[in-house]
C-alpha cells in the first residue's frame, strides 16, 4: 500500500521539475496543477483527507484559476491567437495528462480496494481538525481572516486604474476601437 505514496511522490517530483524547466507559463501551470494533485494524494495516504480535499479545492482550484486569469490578461493582442493554436497541440497536454492518468489509476486502485480507504495507520478526521481550529486556534483563524481581508484590499488597490480621468477614458476609448477593429 505504500506504493501509492511512492508513485504519487515520484509524480510530484517529476511534475515539479517540469514546472521550473518549462519556457511557456501555461505549460508550467499544467504541470503545477498535476504536482498539486499528487501532493493531495500524498496527504490522503498520510491520513489527512481534509487537507487533501482543501489542496484540490483551494490550491489546484482557486489559486491556479487566479494564475490562469493573470497569464491570460498578460497575453492580450493578436499574437494570442497564434499562441492559442500552439497550446492546443498534443505536445502541450500529453505530459500532464499522462502524469494525471497515473494519479487516476491510484485513485481507482484505492476505491477498488474498498473498506479502509486511507492506508494510514490513524486518520485525522475533519471533525478533529474543526474542533482544534475553532477551539485552541481561534485567534489564528481571526488573524487569517484579517490577512485575507488585507490581501483583498491590497489586490484591489493595485489592480485599480490610476491617473487622471482623461487618461482612463482615453484608454477605454483605445480598447473600444481595438475591439471594433477585430
Amino acid at each position, binding site marked *: 500500500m505504500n506504493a501509492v505514496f511512492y508513485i504519487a*511522490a515520484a509524480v510530484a517530483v517529476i511534475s515539479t521539475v517540469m514546472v521550473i524547466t518549462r519556457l511557456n*507559463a501555461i505549460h508550467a501551470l499544467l504541470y503545477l496543477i498535476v504536482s498539486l494533485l499528487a501532493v493531495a494524494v500524498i496527504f490522503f495516504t498520510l491520513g489527512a483527507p481534509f*487537507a487533501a480535499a482543501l489542496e484540490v479545492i483551494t490550491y489546484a482550484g482557486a489559486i491556479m484559476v487566479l*494564475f490562469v486569469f493573470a497569464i491570460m490578461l498578460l497575453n492580450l493582442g493578436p499574437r494570442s491567437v497564434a499562441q492559442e493554436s500552439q497550446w492546443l497541440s498534443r505536445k502541450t497536454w500529453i505530459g500532464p495528462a499522462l502524469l494525471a492518468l497515473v494519479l487516476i489509476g491510484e485513485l481507482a486502485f484505492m476505491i477498488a480496494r474498498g473498506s479502509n480507504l486511507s492506508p494510514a495507520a490513524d486518520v485525522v478526521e475533519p471533525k478533529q481538525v474543526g474542533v482544534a481550529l475553532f477551539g485552541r486556534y481561534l485567534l489564528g483563524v481571526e488573524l487569517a481572516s484579517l490577512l485575507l481581508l488585507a490581501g483583498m484590499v491590497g489586490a484591489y488597490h493595485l489592480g485599480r486604474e490610476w491617473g487622471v480621468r482623461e487618461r482612463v477614458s482615453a484608454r477605454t476609448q483605445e480598447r473600444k476601437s481595438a475591439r471594433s477593429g477585430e
Partner: protein
Amino acid sequence: MASVPTEYGLLLAGALFVLGLIGVLVRRNIVFILMSLEIMLNAAGLAFVTAGARWAQADGQVMYLFILSMAAAEVAVGLALVLKLYHQFKTLDADAASRMHG
C-alpha cells in the same frame, strides 16, 4: 498495514522545497518566480501535515490551513503586482524593476 515512514514524507517535502528554491533563484520571469514560491509554500504545508500525521494530531492540518490562506493572500497581491509591472515596463523580467524611485 504499515503506514508511510515520516522520514520519507519529510524528505519529499524537502525535495519539493529545494526545487521551488531553485526555481526562484534561476528563473527571471516573475510569473515563474511566483509559481516557485507556491511550490515552496506547498512543500512547507506538506512537512506540517506529515508531522501532524506522525503524532496523529490535528495541529499539522490546522497549520496547513493557515499556510493555505496565506498563500491565497500572497498570490492575489503578487499577481496584481505582476499585472502592474507588466503595464508599466511591458515586460515580465524581474530585473527590469530593480531600480526604486526614492
